[in-house]
């Protein structure tokens, strides 16, 4: 379990990093960006991937900031999960961050793993990919060709596949603030504490939005992990209005879970319905407890 040979680069600026990526791509070389390494290094050690070049961005200044505004939270590429988890202001603006980060692996992995790195890894079992999709966030990518912002819906294109080009570096991710009055929750079921979830559901509910004629009284959206090829987001407002059984039916019809050695597709489909209802209930309870108001005050 030792990696195949690779060449290591240690740029000090984003410009150097993307220039390196561009040069390697031009030569037809396979390069990977190394941030926290919590997914990449095991894959290298098991020789499941043998990139000839690693661009280590840990020495780049300015990629480790968490910027909180009333609009949302911008997370730099070198922000570790643990830093974001304990960032009080970020979690007031978007409580889903902490609710989900608590379930990301274990403390030692959160100390090193980066949130943006896990997004770039685009694992449909990742909690943070689900949160980015559910909150309608985006990833900012830089290359020698310039900078672009990629919405979550366009960022995740397949299992372990993002729309980042080979010469692009994800420099930050943006998670929009929770809407005023909203309640959020994140629940999942894993075989062991901290494992990849068999299924997981994040929920955002906004009670009392009955302004539109005929619209449901409660706005309900859920994001799912481990049950589809890319993070799935469902608007369950109508289903919730029709009752919990409708939510379970809607969820079970929409997801496409797979069999693996830990759980069958059937079981995943079954529990995802249950977890969706539990997440919505918990999010409503959080909204009722003033979570939404508190957020609003914090950002206002």
């Amino acid at each position, binding site marked *: 379990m030792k990696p195949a040979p690779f060449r290591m680069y240690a740029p000090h600026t984003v410009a150097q990093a993307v220039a390196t990526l561009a040069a390697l791509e031009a030569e037809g070389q396979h390069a990977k960006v190394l941030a926290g390494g919590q997914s990449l290094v095991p894959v290298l050690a098991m020789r499941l991937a043998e990139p000839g070049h690693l661009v280590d961005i840990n020495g780049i200044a300015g990629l480790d900031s968490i910027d909180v505004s009333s609009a949302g939270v911008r997370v730099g590429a070198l922000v570790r999960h643990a830093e974001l988890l304990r960032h009080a202001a970020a979690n007031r603006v978007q409580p889903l961050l902490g609710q989900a980060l608590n379930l990301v692996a274990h403390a030692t992995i959160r100390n090193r793993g980066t949130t943006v790195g896990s997004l770039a890894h685009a694992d449909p079992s990742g909690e943070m990919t689900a949160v980015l999709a559910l909150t309608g966030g985006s990833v900012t990518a830089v290359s020698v060709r310039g900078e672009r912002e990629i919405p979550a819906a366009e960022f995740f294109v397949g299992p372990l596949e993002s729309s980042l080009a080979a010469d692009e570096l994800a420099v930050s991710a943006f998670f929009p603030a929770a809407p005023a009055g909203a309640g959020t929750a994140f629940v999942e*079921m894993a075989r062991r504490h901290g494992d990849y979830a068999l299924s997981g559901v994040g929920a955002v509910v906004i009670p009392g939005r009955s302004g539109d004629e005929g619209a449901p009284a409660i706005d309900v959206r859920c994001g799912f992990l481990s049950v589809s090829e890319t993070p799935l987001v469902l608007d369950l407002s109508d289903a919730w209005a029709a009752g919990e059984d409708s939510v379970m039916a809607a969820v079970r019809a929409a997801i496409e879970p797979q069999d693996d050695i*830990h*759980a069958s597709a059937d*079981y995943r489909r079954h529990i995802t319905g249950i977890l969706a209802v539990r997440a919505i209930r918990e999010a409503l309870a959080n909204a009722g407890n003033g979570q939404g108001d508190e957020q609003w005050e914090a950002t206002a």
Partner: protein
Amino acid sequence: MGQRYFGEPIRRTEDIRLTTGQGHYLDDIGAGQPVLEAAFLRSPHANARIRSIDIADALDVEGVRAIYLYEDLTGPVAEPLPVLIPHPALTAPRTPYALAKDRVHHVGQAVAMVVAENRYLAEDAAQRIVVDYEVLPAVATLDMARAAERHAHDDVPDNISAHLLQTVGDLDAGFAKATHTLEFDLHVERSASTPLEGKGVYAKWDADDSSLRVYSSTQASTSVRAAIAAKLEIPLLKVEVIAPDVGGGFGVKIAHPWPEEIMVPFAAIRLGQPVKWAEDRREHFISSSHERGQDHHVRVGFDDEGVITALDVLFYHDNGAFTPYGIINPIITSTQLLGPYKPGAYRVDFYSMYTNTVQVTPYRGAGRPQGVFVMERTMDKIAQALGKDRAEVRAANFIQPDEFPYDQGLIFQDGRPLIYDSGNYPHQLTILKDMIGWDDMAARRADAASRGKLLGVGMACYVEGTGVGPYEGAHVHIQTDGTVDVATGLTSQGQGHQTMLAQITADELGVPFEKVRVVTGDTRRFGYAVGTFASRTAVMSGSAVALAARAARAKALRVAANALECDEGDLEIVDGVVQMKGAPDTKIDLGTVAVLSNPLRYAFDKAAQAATQFQGVDDFDKPPVAEDDEPGLEGKDYYSPPRSTFASGMHAAIVEIDPETFDIHIDKYFVVHDCGRLVNPMIVAGQVHGGVAQGIGGALYEKMEYDDDGQLQNASFMDFLMPYVTEIPQKELGELELGHQETPSPLNPIGVKGAGEAGVIPVSALIASAIEDAVGFPIDSMPISPNGLYRLHERFAAGELPRVEHYAASPPAAKRARRGAATRTKKSADTPS
């Protein structure tokens, strides 16, 4: 009397070192020095013929020093590895070659060895070796082995390595006497020891001395030494094998010699440079050992009180691709299955089967978890059939305290009669029932129900043969500074042997605990030993250390009596000082006694002057060293037991099941353990707690997932689910309670029984019982996952599984009504014999 250490919860002297990074494990050996490193190319196929191997491209990797294939092996190294424990019933034993000859029998079998300047380069080269395989259909499961349409070994067409039948009593008469019979199947899956440190070998050849030093992360250094000497044809005294700090074994490191234990020294000698191989995790999963996979069929007859009149068990044991450790595991299952019970008649019949999977050798518990699963599930099914309390049915079948020694009439794993030495099972059960509140679970059940959870309770009892022979020895050496060196050939893997053996030594000699240094598993210090397995260290080495210390003490008293001109019977040793009983001012330090015990010509230091030749002699007609004596203050002795000691335990647990997600949570766990006298209660508690953790792994998480091609799907800690601390009940949180009962063993000088494996043995049995109690349908296969429980629930809902309702004690009035109902259900649960 000085301070007594036996029985005290003394903190482990190993721990500061081991928990602060000061341990010295196999991969630390030779660090910072030029050492060649090895990597092994392993078979990617479960069953295949090797047509050809091309190493040309691999040899081009810079830094590669050698590549070895089977054709490079000569003499005994080219022969198959030994069958360590032959048995007449093992009619088709098979073991691998150190490197595959022309055939591979499981994914992970070593095919080629690459030695390079470092492990990275060795792996680069291994990747470039091209092997042309003719892939054959694999025997991946016990079902496929029984079908015998595919063959794990070409020359074993029925895939059967061994068949053994043992019968006690008249089975037919037992069934004739029975008023009820039940028949059912029980299944246990494959798991593995998975120590945190894998195997590893370091070898250094000294050409000037023609001697070999080998470090191996092993549980049996003396036997590894003998195997290396035999294979490499080196005189035994020119081979040293040392087990450094070993990061866990749990049985997998008792199997030996591994291919790597032969090949690493082989390469070191040929290359004239130290060579090291440290197993990585993936290698460990696919090329070490697994255990536990067994299918059982049970037929049991019993009377209206639940007393078993006849028990008939047939089981199939998956021994994997090879049988280096013989049929120890199924023999243990077949004998230890009986636990604390005495069925009227018993027949046990097993087949040990080849599959194209990793070989099977003992893993902590070694066949007992399966046997206990069978017996305890049987007890639960009898109770359910009769509508009786599960505890009551167990008690009705117990061996009684006045029946010891109790002969079960079988031959145990050590080839000797299965005779229990001591125990008190009824009392043990009473303690357990009181701890858990067995007879009053109503409030707990109601509380769980109010939280939307299903609550279940389960219990399981076992008896464990521990401390098997043939022998262990020890050497106790009192130094002239008053310190004491103790050596035993048996190894240590973190159990606290240094502490426990020092406690025994300190008490026997009368010296402070801090003065005792213990070395284990170093053939330079002690050459005769068997190894660390079968919960035998305290019994075997503990007894040997006690006997050796007594010998050293006797000599110390004799020498001191001579110096103090008194009778040795008037002397005692207190805190390292030999003194006159009742007149402690007449005394001599034990260190000085050691000086005097060794008559000297040369005073190499100040203390030694006292023993030199002009310091006065009592009798010029006697030689300085008497005819039947020897210089120095040492004791050496061996302990060889007539048979095993039998520890016992009873565990219970309360589980909660989420009726929607089928998530399984262990709410409380209780243990009542009896390993005779406790040398160190803290160490015993740690052993039991750790065992319970491993047992929970086996009950709820761990399973080797082979596909039908014999590929292991979860050969990493990401997918093989060893429980984390978050999955294990914590004593500190009030989730785990441990109680002890002490029935001393009459078989050894310190009255102890083994404790190392205890915790793991009954866990699957009682967790199955508790889950069944919660969900109301049978749990007959372990481990069980939430997914598995969901699947069973779907079958139950479809009417494919019967309802199981365990008797729950209630207030007297309700109890009568309930019993009536239960009696009615009994008849439908019975099947005709």
